[in-house]
C-alpha cells in the first residue's frame, strides 16, 4: 500500500528524512515509531503529497506520489498532526464542505454524502452533535471529528498521525477498538506515533525512525525476540540462588533472571534441587526496549554539550 525507495528530504542543510525504504503491505497495522523530531511527520506529509521529497520515490496505493497524488489519495483517509476544521461551522457542515471539495470515487458520490457523513460521525461517537459550531468543541471532540473526516470516504488506507492525542483513557480504548475493527474489515492502518503503548497494543508491524533514518522495520513479534535469558519465580529464592550460583544476573524477591542457561535447564536444575517453580519463561525484549536500544533522544531534549575530554 505504501512503498518508498530511498526517500530523502532536506530542509536547508539538515537531512530530516534520510533515505528511508518503507514497506506497508495490505492489511497491515503498521506502527511508525520514533522520538519527537525524528522525521515522522515530514514523512507522512511526503506520503500525502504535502511536502515534496528532495530525492527518492514514493508509491501510495500503487501510484507515484506526487505525480499521481490525486489518484493515489482517492481511497486514503488521513489525520495529519492536529485535526483542523472551520470553527464557525458545525461538524456536519465541515465534513460536507471538505467532501464536496474533492472528486468522487468508488463508493464515494454526492448522492450518498449525507449517509457517509452520518456513518462517520456515528462511528467516532459524534452522532449526537447538533448545529453547535466546532469552535465550541473540546479537544477530544475535535480529534474525533478529525477521525470522522478521515473516514468519510470509506478509505482502504488510513494514515493517522497521533490519533489518540487529547483523548481520555476511555476514548483511547474506544478509538483503538474502532481501528482494530476497521482493520479486520480490510482497512490498512499506518499509524505514526511516539506512544509506545499505543503501537504495542495496536500494531502488528513497526518501522522505527531515528534522526531521519529507518533503523528497523519488522513484525512486532520479531522485535520482541528472546534475550537469551530465563526468568523464573521460585518458592525458595535463597536456596535457588545457591543452586544457580553465578548464573543469576538480577534478583527481585522471588523473581530471578538467569543467564547462560535455557529455560528447560534452569527448570530441571531447580526441580532436581526440590525448589518449587512458580513460573519459568524466556525473557523477551519489550517493544520499549527495542525502540530505546535503536533510537537516541528526541530533538526536543537540548542538553549541555559533552566536554571535549569525555569524547
Amino acid at each position, binding site marked *: 500500500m505504501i512503498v518508498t525507495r530511498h526517500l530523502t528530504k532536506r530542509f536547508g542543510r539538515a537531512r530530516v528524512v534520510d533515505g528511508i525504504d518503507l514497506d506497508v503491505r495490505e492489511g497491515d497495522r503498521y506502527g511508525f515509531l520514533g522520538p519527537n523530531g525524528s522525521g515522522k511527520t515530514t514523512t507522512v*506529509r511526503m506520503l*500525502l*503529497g*504535502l*511536502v*515534496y521529497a528532495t530525492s527518492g520515490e514514493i508509491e501510495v496505493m500503487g501510484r507515484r506520489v506526487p505525480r499521481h*497524488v*490525486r489518484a493515489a*489519495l*482517492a481511497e*486514503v483517509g*488521513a489525520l*495529519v*498532526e*492536529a*485535526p*483542523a*476544521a*472551520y*470553527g*464557525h*461551522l458545525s461538524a456536519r*457542515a465541515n465534513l460536507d*464542505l*471538505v*467532501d*464536496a*471539495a*474533492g*472528486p468522487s470515487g468508488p463508493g464515494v458520490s454526492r448522492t450518498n454524502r449525507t449517509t457517509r457523513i452520518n456513518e462517520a460521525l456515528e462511528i467516532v461517537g459524534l452522532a449526537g452533535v447538533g448545529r453547535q459550531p466546532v469552535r465550541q468543541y473540546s479537544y477530544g471532540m475535535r480529534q474525533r471529528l478529525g477521525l470522522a*473526516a478521515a473516514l468519510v470516504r470509506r478509505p482502504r488506507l488510513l494514515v493517522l498521525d497521533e490519533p489518540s492525542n487529547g483523548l481520555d483513557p476511555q476514548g483511547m480504548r474506544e478509538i483503538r477498538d474502532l481501528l482494530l475493527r476497521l482493520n479486520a474489515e480490510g482497512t490498512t492502518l499506518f499509524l505514526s506515533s511516539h506512544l509506545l503503548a499505543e503501537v504495542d497494543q495496536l500494531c502488528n508491524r513497526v518501522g522505527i525512525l531515528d534522526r531521519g533514518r529507518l533503523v528497523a522495520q519488522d513484525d512486532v513479534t520479531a522485535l520482541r525476540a528472546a534475550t537469551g535469558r530465563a526468568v523464573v519465580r521460585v518458592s525458595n529464592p535463597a536456596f535457588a540462588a545457591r543452586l544457580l550460583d553465578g548464573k543469576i544476573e538480577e534478583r527481585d524477591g522471588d523473581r530471578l533472571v538467569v543467564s547462560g542457561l535455557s529455560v528447560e535447564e534452569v527448570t530441571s536444575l531447580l526441580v532436581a534441587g526440590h525448589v518449587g517453580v512458580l513460573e519459568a519463561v524466556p525473557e523477551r525484549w519489550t517493544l520499549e526496549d527495542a525502540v530505546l536500544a535503536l533510537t537516541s533522544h528526541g530533538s526536543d531534549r537540548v542538553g549541555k554539550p559533552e566536554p571535549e575530554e569525555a569524547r
Partner: protein
Amino acid sequence: MIRVELRKLLLRPRTWVSVFLLCLLPAIVAIFLHISRVGPRPGEGPAFLSAVLGNGALYPAAALGLVLPIFLPIAVAVVSGDAVAGEAASGTLRYLLIRPVSRTRLLVAKLISIGAYVFIAVVTVAATAYPVGISLLGTGEVVGTTTVSGTPLTTPQLILRTVLTVLYIGWSMLGVASVSLFLSTLTDSALAAALGGLAVLVTSTVLVALDAAASVRSYLPTRYWLSWVDLFRDPILWRDVERGVIVQAVYIAVLLGMAWANFATRDVTS
C-alpha cells in the same frame, strides 16, 4: 471546488460584516450632507460629493468614490490575504489538499471567490447608496442629472455609466487582491499578507503624488484608480480608463502567475 469556496465565502459572518461596514460609511456621509447641506466646493474633496448635493441619483458613484481610496482596498486585502494563509494557519489547507484537491484548482477557486467578494462589495455599496441618496438628497428635479462636464444625463445613460464604474472599480480591486493573494501563498500569516498588500498600495499612492517618481507613475497600480470619474464626462474620456484596465491586467496576470508558481511547488508544512 469553486462552489465550495463560494459557499465558504457566503457562510462566513466576516464577509457580511465587512460589506455592511462598507455600506455604512457612505450612509453616514449622506446623513451629514442631508443635515448641513454643505458640500465640498466643486473640484475639491472626494469626487462627486459636490454634485450629489443637488441630485441623489449620482450618489452610488459618489459612494464608490468614498470607499475606494481606503476602505475597499482594506477589505479586499484582508479577504485575499486570508485566502491561502488563513487556511494554512488553521490547518484546513492540508486537509483540503489531501482530500485530494489539486493546488491549481484550489488557487483558481480562491481567486473566483475573491472576485465574487469584490463584486458583492462594490455592487452592494452602489445599490444601497442609491436609496440613501434619493431619500436624503432628493432626486434632483431642480438641477437634473448632469455629467461632470455639465451636460444632462438620461436615466439609461446614468445606469450604464454606474455599471461601468462598478466594473472598473471591481477590476482595480482585483489588482489589490492579486497582490495579497500572492503574499498569502508566501506566508502562513493572513495578517502579514493583508498588510503587505496594503503596504504596496500606500507605496504606490505616495509615488503617484511624487513628482520625482514621474517616470514610473504610469505603471503604478493606483495611478488610474480614480479615472472612473472620466466615465461621467461627456463624452466619456476613455484614455485613462483603458490604460487603467491594461495596467491592472498586467499586475493581475503577473502576480497570479507568481502565486501559482509558488503555491504549486512549495512544501505545505503548516
